[in-house]
């Protein structure tokens, strides 16, 4: 204290000045009141900057660092003036006190000046209540996000589970830099179909996981899907350890939004059982058609058999007579008629065979004539005039399976016969409707048209719409399978054609049904196509 006093005295001379205590007449009570008040105020002021420093240090985010420093300086200066007030009670260092007061004034002014512009910013700082509100909102938002995230997780799990457990084989393939297709994901069904471990397949190429023959087809389809961005759908027979399976496959190309193929979504369904069922239905319908034809066939067989029998009698009676030429004639006839019977048998065998053979070129009129030959007698027996107007000489060339086409005509003829017979049976005496059926064929441009028209009264409008539905029948139980026309429809569709039905001459005695079959002319016979070849008819 003495040293500091000496130093101050040297700097700021105090000669002639009285300590401030003198002004208080050294009254102890008053003196100590000032000493305590100033000292405590000064000490308190000195402690505040410490708080400010700690606060600004720990909460640098508040952004008022340098203002706090200014404040701290201002408060330190204020504190110093109070402590100096105590000092000057005994020591008249009023210069020192004045200088410190001047510094305090400077710092105070500076603080005041910078504080005013800060006011709007300080006011803008949210209050704790506001902060609490904002915080609450934020908290709520976070909770909501949590819920959404959890829902997303659930949803993803659900879809992953769906992907995994769906009854179809699912794959996604990515296209690698070399243009090869590699498995990205596959589900359990897909792994089962390939009879392999699911995990080991990721990243493998098409050729690594499928037999070569299958991979080649898939690769071709994948490339096509990538090239035009269109969905590919196809059926494929895949050989397996326990027989071959038929797969129905759909390839969906997914692009990156800019048209570049990114990946392929492939779904495949094993339709072997359905195919087998379809084959069964087709076979059943064919056998039903054979049943329809059986009476006609019996008649067709009885004709040559009858000729053989009669000529055998001729031969027997001429045997041993000089008329050896008649014996020879009889034997020749017998041989010819036996051959004729063999042809009928072959034809029937073809009809009841499971396999209808490959798609081939044939004359629609010829196939229709075969059907007429087998059914014609039936019309005679039922007293129905059957008019046949079919051009000969391969004028109606088409592509398909002739046996199936014949089956269609047989079915249409049988329906026509039944309709005419039923209408005749129900007719009143004196107003008998005509009993006739006409089969005709012609070429219209590049289309071959065959029609079967009857005088059976036509088709009721409510039946017309359902005519080609499977298992739809108007015939009594045991008479119709309801498959005839449905199969006809499928057969004609497989030839890229269509079959339609209408009622003609409605409301008159001549009223009847007309079935029209339209099939494209065989490719090699179309205008502008000199090349041979078969149509790309779908397999049935």
């Amino acid at each position: 204290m003495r040293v500091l006093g000496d130093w101050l005295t040297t700097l700021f001379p105090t000669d002639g000045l009285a300590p401030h205590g003198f002004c208080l007449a050294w009254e102890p009570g008053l003196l100590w009141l000032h000493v305590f008040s100033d000292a405590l105020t000064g000490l308190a002021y000195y402690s505040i900057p410490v708080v400010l420093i700690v606060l600004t240090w720990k909460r640098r985010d508040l952004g008022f660092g340098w203002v706090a420093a200014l404040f701290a300086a201002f408060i330190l200066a204020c504190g110093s003036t109070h402590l100096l007030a105590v000092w000057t009670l005994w020591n008249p260092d009023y210069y020192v006190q004045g200088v410190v007061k001047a510094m305090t004034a400077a710092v105070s002014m500076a603080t005041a000046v910078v504080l005013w512009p800060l006011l709007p910013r300080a006011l803008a700082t949210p209050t704790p209540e506001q902060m609490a509100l904002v915080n609450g909102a934020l908290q709520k938002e976070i909770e909501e996000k949590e819920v959404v995230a959890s829902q997303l997780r659930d949803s993803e799990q659900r879809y992953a589970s769906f992907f995994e457990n769906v009854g179809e084989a699912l794959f996604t393939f990515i296209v690698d830099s070399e243009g090869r297709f590699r498995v990205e994901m596959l589900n359990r069904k897909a792994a089962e179909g390939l009879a392999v471990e699911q995990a080991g397949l990721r990243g493998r190429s098409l050729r690594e996981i499928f037999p070569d023959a299958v991979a080649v087809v898939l690769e071709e389809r994948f490339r096509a899907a990538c090239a035009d961005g269109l969905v590919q759908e196809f059926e494929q027979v895949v050989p397996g350890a326990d027989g071959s399976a038929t797969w129905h496959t759909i390839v969906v190309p997914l692009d990156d939004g800019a048209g570049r193929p990114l990946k392929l979504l492939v779904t495949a369904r094993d339709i072997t059982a359905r195919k087998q069922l379809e084959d069964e239905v087709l076979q059943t319908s064919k056998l039903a058609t054979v049943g329809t034809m059986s009476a006609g066939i019996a008649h067709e067989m009885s004709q040559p058999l009858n000729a053989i029998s009669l000529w055998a009698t001729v031969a027997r009676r001429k045997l041993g007579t000089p008329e050896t030429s008649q014996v020879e004639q009889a034997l020749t006839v017998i041989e010819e008629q036996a051959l004729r019977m063999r042809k009928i048998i072959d034809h029937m065998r073809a009809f009841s065979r499971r396999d209808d053979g490959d798609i081939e070129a044939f004359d629609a009129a010829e196939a229709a004539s075969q059907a007429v030959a087998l059914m014609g007698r039936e019309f005679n027996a039922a007293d129905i005039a059957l008019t046949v107007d079919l051009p000969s000489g391969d004028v109606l060339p088409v592509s398909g399976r002739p046996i199936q086409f014949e089956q269609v005509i047989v079915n249409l003829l049988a329906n026509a016969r039944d309709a005419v017979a039923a209408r005749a049976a129900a007719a009143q005496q004196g107003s008998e409707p005509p009993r006739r059926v006409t089969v005709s064929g012609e070429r219209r441009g590049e289309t071959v048209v065959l029609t079967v028209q009857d005088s059976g009264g036509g088709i009721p409008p409510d039946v017309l719409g359902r005519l080609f539905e499977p298992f739809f029948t108007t015939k009594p139980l045991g008479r119709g399978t309801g498959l005839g026309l449905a199969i006809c429809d499928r057969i004609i569709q497989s030839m890229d054609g269509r079959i339609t039905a209408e009622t003609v001459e409605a409301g008159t005695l001549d009223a009847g049904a007309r079935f029209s079959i339209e099939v494209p002319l065989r490719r090699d016979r179309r205008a502008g196509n000199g090349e041979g070849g078969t149509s790309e008819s779908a397999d049935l």
Partner: protein
Amino acid sequence: MARAAHPKVLICEDEEIAALALETLLADEGFSVAVTHDGAAAVAAVEADGFDLVITDLQVPGLAGRALVHGLRRRLPIVPIIVMTGRPPEEGEAALDGAEGTLLLFKKPLNFDHLVAEAWRLTRGAGSG
């Protein structure tokens, strides 16, 4: 049994090769045989000429079945008719006739020996005037 000389038989059969055999066999037996190949021609033939017996198929072009039988009967009400068919009506002869006059059904393939015996029986007394 005294056989009449050359009873007149009309054959109506659209299977020409079968008709030819029948014609040959019946002619050898001593019948006077005419042949037609469709129902309408058969009816026209019986309208133009009298016959002692008609042997016809049931399912022939032109006129068939019951209509053919009726057409023949209209002209020759009591002429015996032998119907040959590969598919006899379920009701038998009754389904075709109903009028007087004999009508026999023969199933194809024909047993000619049996047929010719019936033909002689049915034409007994015919052809002699």
